[in-house]
């Protein structure tokens, strides 16, 4: 069973902030939706089960 909070297409996404690893810098960081919006960027969120998996 997946947990459904479930934002639907067409709705505004609430702000979020996540910790990151940035391969191009070889360093850790953080990013928020507020920052991405301020930079006028399109965002693709790409969820996957776990690192070191296969598909």
């Amino acid at each position, binding site marked *: 069973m997946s947990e459904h909070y479930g934002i639907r297409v067409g709705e505004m*996404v609430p702000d979020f902030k996540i910790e990151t690893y940035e391969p191009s810098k070889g360093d850790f960081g953080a990013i928020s939706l507020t920052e991405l919006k301020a930079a006028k960027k399109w965002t693709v969120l790409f969820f996957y089960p776990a690192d070191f998996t296969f598909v």
Partner: protein
Amino acid sequence: MSTDTKFVHLAWQRDEKMLEKVKYIMGSDPNARLSKMFGVYDKEAGLDLRGTFIISPEGKLMNSEVNYFNLGRNVEEILRKVRANIHLNAHQNEGCPAKWQKEGDKTLQPSAKMVGRVFYALE
């Protein structure tokens, strides 16, 4: 995005040769707060499903696609959707048909004339 920590992201990206050229930012969501927000956290497995979400610069969710654990995604199709979204955000009275691939390809502008004549509009 996964529920792995940023430390595991680093280790995976450094060790797996297939990820040598990765430039995208790897997000860490260890308490599944974000994957729950998007409805892709599988409680029994304790893992995220393969969900893809495209968010506009205004913060609106424009696309959502979720695959089960064992089915990979077609990155070309995701990029096509991003290109189409960028085009449609600037031309909101148009529609991108299924076979639209890139800027310059034919779009549709719904009108009375086109009803029942989409075949000819795409010619």
